[in-house]
């Protein structure tokens, strides 16, 4: 007798239970020395005849193990972000970008060199700000452009790393905390996606 059958028959409750099967995988990919991305894929076949709602509920419950892992290993957002920034790879030079990427980079760089920037009052003395409105073409809306310059005490690569990690923990948490203070959000929404809430007739904006 195979070992699996032997084990199941050794337990009275298990011997009477319906045999179910599961298959899947867990992929752990390093993002930084102490940060990883976990992908968990599972298929469950509970055997016999069972309501689909129960099966879907059991599958979702199984997926909860990823959240348990995340909670178990959770560390301070700023520490994790610093590790992520230090592991940020050197971006590719312009020559290695594909056509679509080059187009985005070239078009957006042209925005900075254009004239007619009007100085804006900055909330911080070390940050200078400007604004301008691009003249609308026929059938288009006016587009507002903003520009800010300052000196940051970190290497350029680290700065671009910080910027690239839009979903970084500390950024998301500080955003959520700010929103929570203003809107009295529930604690379990503290990791919510950044959606700017607008009141009155202006609808919410997804950033």
């Amino acid at each position, binding site marked *: 007798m195979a070992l699996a059958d032997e084990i199941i028959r050794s337990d009275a*409750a298990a011997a009477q239970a319906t045999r179910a099967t599961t298959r899947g995988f867990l992929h752990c990919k390093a993002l930084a020395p102490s940060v990883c*991305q*976990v992908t968990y894929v599972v298929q469950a076949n509970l055997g016999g005849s069972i309501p689909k709602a129960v099966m879907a509920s059991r599958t979702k419950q199984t997926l909860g193990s990823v959240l348990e892992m995340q909670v178990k290993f959770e560390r301070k957002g700023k520490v*994790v972000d610093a590790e992520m920034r230090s592991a940020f790879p050197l971006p590719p030079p312009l020559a290695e970008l594909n056509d679509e990427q080059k187009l985005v980079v070239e078009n957006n760089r042209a925005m900075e060199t254009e004239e007619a920037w009007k100085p804006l009052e900055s909330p911080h003395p070390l940050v200078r700000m400007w604004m301008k409105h691009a003249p609308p073409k026929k059938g288009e809306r006016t587009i507002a452009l903003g520009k800010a310059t300052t000196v940051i005490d970190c290497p350029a690569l680290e700065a671009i790393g910080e910027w690239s990690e839009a979903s970084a923990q500390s950024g998301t948490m500080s955003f959520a905390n700010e929103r929570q203070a203003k809107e009295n959000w529930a604690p379990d929404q503290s990791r919510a996606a950044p959606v700017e809430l607008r009141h009155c007739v202006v609808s919410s904006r997804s950033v």
Partner: protein
Amino acid sequence: MQSVAWKRIPNTVRESVSYFKRAEGDASAWGKASAWGKAVATVDTSATRALAYNWCGASYEHVALHVKKQGTGGLRKLIYENDSHTMLYAILFRVGGVLADRVFATSFSWREEDDGSFLLAWAPVKSTLPPSAWR
């Protein structure tokens, strides 16, 4: 599995883990269909430690979690194949209500991928190895 069209599970978009689902088989409310689920998350630990956490299922922590969810007395047995990356995992799930309990016998294996990531995969156990091959 990359080409499969996954659908986000409703009302989970605000959660820190991304949850997806996919159903196949019988479309009726009752059936022998199987359900697929997927979860993606960033975990604040190394890939090695994440793998180890899932591989060492007999730890006090895992057992305590199981007891909390399923109660005591149910079958839960892990057996590692000698000198290998293979584990046999037998577990009894109490579904509740009038539905019969479910028992799983699953074989787990892990390996390091070429890019340094780790893959832990499992499938229904088919091994016919004698009990002496396991520890």
